């Protein structure tokens, strides 16, 4: 049982004595946040715009990771909540001329309600049925929006109020969302729910036998992820300023979430951070090659996964044997072929 119990070790807790990393960690992190928050003072317009993208995609990645990496819910439908966020912003500010702040609350509420409603059918499904089911839900929502008079069908909205938001302000918003998502996942994992998630991740049926309420834990993760993705969607569309069903509910959002999380390292809290940086920088670089930029992205995705099948964090962990926040999902790489878990149990 050695490998299994190791998953439930103290998360982020340092084994070292007080006065070491544990004591200084808040300081280091606070300094890092300050450095990042002051970025508009020393970065160019372009740097700021890239920063916005990194932190927003980081948030999407963290939330997808919360599902796939920690709850075992591989969803292809989280773009539904990005779309809900975007359209809430559009309706609140353009159709009803109300404040942007209000759209955050409404987006959160609508996302929560929608996530609750669809959780009834899709939580009956498991594995790939869940995966495909979530995609169908989000495609259905796309078609529904295209046929919904209330949102002007497929016409789309320009979010004109967002033209005049200053980019540093938008950057700070994105920073808050991105770091907020990271912190949220971190605290979830440190809570009792985190312990339950670890147990589920290591052995679902064993966890259930030990009294972990699978359904409730997974549902809670799904709701949190969906609501936060919806809120992220609002900020995303404050940046994009033009919302249209095909783009807002497009599978491209999920492609980018999967890329970020898997490349960064599934089931690690640093993974989406690294993944988002890599994804955004890579995309910005490939934009210099119009026409073949998508091919470059696809080749990069396949190549990276061939070189580091468990993502960057998996590779880092495999080589150096440490993690910043230890929340690994699987027995560390190199403990033998995965399809024979009895090996791990045997040792």
């Amino acid at each position, binding site marked *: 049982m050695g490998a299994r119990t190791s998953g439930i070790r103290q998360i982020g807790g340092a084994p070292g004595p007080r006065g070491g990393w544990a004591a200084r960690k808040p300081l280091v992190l606070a300094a890092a946040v300050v450095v990042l928050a002051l970025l508009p003072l020393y970065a160019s317009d372009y740097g700021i715009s890239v920063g916005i993208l990194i932190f927003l995609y980081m948030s999407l990645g963290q939330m997808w990771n919360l599902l796939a990496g920690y709850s075992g819910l591989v969803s292809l439908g989280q773009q539904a909540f990005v779309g809900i966020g975007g359209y809430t912003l559009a309706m609140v500010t353009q159709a009803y001329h109300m404040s942007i702040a209000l759209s955050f609350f409404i987006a959160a509420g609508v996302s929560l309600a929608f996530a609750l409603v669809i959780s009834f059918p899709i939580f009956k499904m498991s594995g790939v049925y869940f995966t495909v089911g979530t995609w169908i839900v989000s495609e259905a929502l796309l078609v529904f929006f295209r046929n919904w008079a209330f949102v002007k069908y497929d016409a789309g909205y320009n979010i004109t109020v967002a033209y005049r938001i200053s980019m540093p302000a938008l950057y700070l918003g994105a920073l808050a969302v991105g770091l907020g998502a990271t912190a949220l996942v971190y605290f979830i994992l440190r809570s009792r729910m985190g312990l339950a998630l670890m147990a589920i991740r290591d052995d679902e049926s064993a966890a259930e036998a030990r009294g972990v309420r699978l359904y409730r834990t997974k549902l809670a993760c799904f709701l949190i992820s969906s609501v936060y993705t919806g809120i992220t969607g609002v900020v995303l569309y404050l940046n994009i300023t033009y919302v249209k069903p095909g783009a807002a509910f497009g599978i491209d959002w999920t492609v980018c979430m999967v890329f970020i999380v898997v490349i960064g390292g599934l089931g690690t809290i640093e993974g989406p951070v690294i993944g988002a940086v890599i994804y955004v920088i890579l995309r910005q670089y490939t934009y210099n090659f119009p026409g073949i930029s998508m091919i470059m992205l696809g080749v990069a995705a396949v190549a990276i996964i061939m070189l580091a099948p468990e993502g960057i964090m998996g590779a880092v962990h495999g080589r150096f044997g440490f993690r910043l926040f230890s929340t690994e999902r699987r027995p560390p790489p190199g403990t*033998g072929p995965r399809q024979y878990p009895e090996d791990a149990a*045997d*040792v």
Partner: protein
Amino acid sequence: MDGALMTVEGLSVSYGDFRALHDISMRFDRGSIVSIIGSNGAGKSTLLNAVMGINRKLSGRVVFDGADITSMRTSAIVAKGVTMSPEGSSVFEDMSVHENLLMGAYLTNSRDKRARMTERAYGLFPALREKSGQLATFLSGGQRQMLAIARALMSDPKLLICDELSLGLAPVVVNDIYDRILDVNEEGVTIVLVEQEVKRSLEFSDYSYVLVKGRVVIEGRSDELSEDEVKDAYFGINKYA
């Protein structure tokens, strides 16, 4: 008994920093029944995976019938005449009993031989003949175990490894199955029993190895080993660890 059919020489397996098997050496004589006894986590599965080529990252040597089979592909090892009956839960559930048997003869190209082997399997386990058309998922635990053994025998092996025959089965059923194993052994098939249960293993085998924490701690002729001695080794881990 005329010499070793298979020998394991200095076999070690490591996972990262962790060494799961330490320099294991074993000898399986032609026509004998050898038992490997160990508790959950002693390294039995690791050993079997290494021998059967499922895990090919190992050091040491496995020699079968004069040929070095270390790190061969599983299919090549099976073709040489080593086969393993995994735990009873591993039957192909969505296949009929008959199809399961056919899978056992997957590497046998001769139709005649397949027919002969099928007859032998049904002869050994008449209960399976009655169920031959049924999906394996509807079999009882004992029947599944029988099917797993029958399926393994379909490749006409010289050496049959039986993993945890008694796991989760009622003693009556287990006795029945062990009797069948003796029948198989009578036909000249060398048998390796991998078990947690000490008493029955000693009773049914000619030679025994006791595995604790990836090492062979006791070995000897089964009739010369006392149950208590083995149990001490088995439970009194501190003595050896």
